[in-house]
């Protein structure tokens, strides 16, 4: 393995995609406003991917994030509906906390089942993906839930905030969270344990790492990030949608893997996952801008996913022959 190339691969991929579309798409593509749009569009997948980074480094996977995002949007909308006009100032904060908490609780359940019964994370979260989706529909009474307007609605507006903010508040949040995740992974005991779990769980157990507790914490964190992503999703649509983010779990996993995460565990980086999310946003935006038909978009996105992961393999050939 050449860490150099593997770390660079997502950046190269992003640069290549950007250049490609700068040629294909109209000039508006590399205008500042469109750049901000792309950034905004990477927020939801990006925040989800940051949480997923913990999960994937630890050797797990979480297919339930899409459903958790839906739960969070619904819960947030429901919470906002609890207040009467004029809404008390703390209500949006409380709603935000509820969304995050709801994700975290879902994550705790994922982690608990995975750790307690030693089941494959893929299958556990495949199950909870259905369960949480059902939960979201139930919470929403099988409807989209409208909510009174609050400052939450502005979180994902491309340039709604004051001028000095420059980009959407959601983008700043994404960047801040990326930095926070990078610090946690690199400098904290918890971060080390995350890597240890993914690299060799048996060894971690023997060394007294509280494996089950850590797994639960890791999935809880992944779920909490899904909750925050759900809040951003809510801000985007300004309503709670129980069918939101169906299939997004795969986008999120793809972002992490494009960014250098390994599904075998032990590898992954916060910045990489961010780049992965950005790459996918650039692709989608570029394809729309260039008027590329939908089917070609699918094909390009698929090729990029494989390409980004394949790139480093071409460099580091034939390890143990």
């Amino acid at each position, binding site marked *: 393995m050449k860490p150099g190339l593997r770390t660079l691969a997502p950046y190269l991929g992003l640069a290549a995609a950007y250049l490609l579309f700068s040629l294909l798409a109209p000039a508006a593509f590399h205008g500042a406003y469109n750049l901000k749009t792309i950034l905004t569009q990477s927020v939801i997948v990006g925040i989800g991917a940051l949480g997923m980074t913990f999960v994937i480094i630890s050797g797990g996977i979480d297919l339930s994030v899409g459903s958790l995002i839906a739960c969070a949007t619904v819960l947030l909308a429901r919470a906002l509906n609890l207040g009467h006009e004029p809404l008390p100032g703390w209500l949006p904060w409380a709603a935000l906390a509820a969304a995050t908490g709801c994700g975290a609780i879902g994550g705790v359940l994922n982690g608990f089942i995975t750790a307690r019964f030693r089941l494959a994370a893929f299958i556990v979260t495949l199950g909870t993906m259905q369960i949480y989706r059902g939960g979201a529909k139930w919470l929403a009474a099988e409807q989209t839930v409208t909510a009174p307007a609050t400052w939450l609605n502005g979180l994902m507006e491309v340039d709604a905030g004051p001028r000095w903010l420059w980009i959407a508040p959601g983008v700043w949040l994404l960047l801040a969270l990326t930095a926070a995740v990078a610090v946690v992974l690199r400098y904290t005991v918890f*971060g080390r344990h995350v*890597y*240890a779990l993914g*690299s*060799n769980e048996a*060894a*971690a157990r*023997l060394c*007294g790492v509280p494996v089950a507790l850590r797994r639960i914490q890791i999935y809880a964190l992944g779920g909490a990030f899904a909750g925050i992503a759900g809040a951003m999703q809510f801000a985007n649509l300004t309503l709670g949608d129980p069918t939101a983010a169906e299939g997004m779990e795969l986008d999120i996993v793809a972002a992490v893997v494009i960014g250098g995460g390994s599904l075998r565990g032990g590898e992954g980086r916060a910045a990489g996952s961010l780049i992965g999310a950005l790459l996918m946003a650039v692709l989608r935006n570029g394809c729309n801008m260039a008027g590329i038909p939908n089917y070609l978009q699918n094909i390009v996105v698929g090729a990029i996913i494989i390409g980004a992961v394949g790139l480093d393999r071409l460099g580091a050939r034939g390890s143990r022959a």
Partner: protein
Amino acid sequence: MVGELSKPHLSGPHLNEPRSGRPILRVLGVKKAFGAAQALRGADLEVLPGEIHALVGENGAGKSTLMAILGGNLRPDSGDIAFRGEDWTPAGPAEARNRGVSLVHQELALVPHLNVESNVTLGNEKARFGFARSQADRVRAALEELGYADLDPGARVGSLGMAERQIVEIARALFHDAKLILMDEPTSSLPARDVERLFAALGRLKARGIAIVYISHFLDEVARVADRISVLRDGATVAAGLPADTPTPDILQAMVGRPVAEIFPPRQGNLGGTVLEARGWVSRPGAAPADLSLRKGQILGLAGLVGSGRSALLRSLYGLRRPVAGSLAIGGEAELARGWTLERARASGIGFLSEDRKDEGLALGLSIRANSTLGELRRFANAAGLLRLDAEAAAVETMRTDLAMRSQGIEQPVGELSGGNQQKVALGRLLLGDATVWLLDEPTRGVDVGAKAEIYRLIAAEAAQGKAVIWAGSYLPELFGICDSLAVLHRGKLSPIRPISAWSEATVMAWAAQGVHA
């Protein structure tokens, strides 16, 4: 010869010194069963502070199981254990370690993606507000104490060699202020030079009053480093705390339950025609071109230090890695190195036994049956391509009895067998196949003395029937006992092949270390 085995082949000071005092560890009548298998049926052990206590026994005798119990990994079914005068019932490995007992595992418990420091401190990090504080100084001190001051605490463990990994594990024990260190076959994958460094480290530990339980299948090592020896047989202690100078034959008899007369079978030197001839063979970049020829009935030993290229040579001959240059003639037909593939090697009648049983040799989740016939399935298939399961079962059953394999029938997953019995499955695969040239890479690694004798006998018998064997090994007495000719590798440079009688341990070591004849 028994004498040969017991003769220490390593030089250096004896570590043995008599010790006395109250035992730090006392184990009495410990029993443990895994389902129907009774792994321990009354194990006793008494270890004094500051002593190196060797634990020996055949494969499957229960040594690792006992260590797992002491290290807090397993709970015994019954029996008494006292450590430093108190009842010993640790809730888990972490508690055991914090109370002074550290286990250095047979399968190393390291995290390859993290660096040395993180590995040593794993599970016991010092933190402020959750942020890990550097303990590099203490880690470095532990490494220094072990004589490995050059090992960088920031190095990724995945990039370290076997010996260094072993040291990281021991450093972890030191770091946690262990009073008792349990070592399960620490030298089974170490070359002689690193064994020396390890022994030196053990001496330092001992001087600090740390007690060590030391498991090994190398009785000469045991004689050198241990103060006392306990012998396990079939899960029970049959000899407790023998003095270190107990004659080897007595230890062997205790282990096996009968006198072990001859270890190496007699070899008769009637060799047939040349079956394999390599010319200018370069197995990996930087290696010197090697000429090699092998005759029917010959057992050719291949000695060398770790990394000298023995495995690379065997693997390239088997087509597992692409050789750089050279040509190969098998049965008169010449092949260029470039086109040499695993398929051709197998078609030309070459068989291979890997040194890495766990990762490459065996499919641990599959049964003995599936593992032993995997290479030769076509032999058991009828014209329609369907397998004749009865014929297969019969063949595997025969092989199992021939090798005296200890298992619950042929459908048991290989992963449940003890190390030695797993090795027998790997060998059995060659026996069931029809290869005429056997390339064996460390075929007796982790195998007990009794089973080793079996393997020697078996391979000698196969050679007598016309097989040609290359035997890569690290343990010189074994190579001297079983081979009829020998070649030595030094950094990819192969010495001329000479009859075994033309070598001595000194000349082998000289070539291995310097690549010249002494």
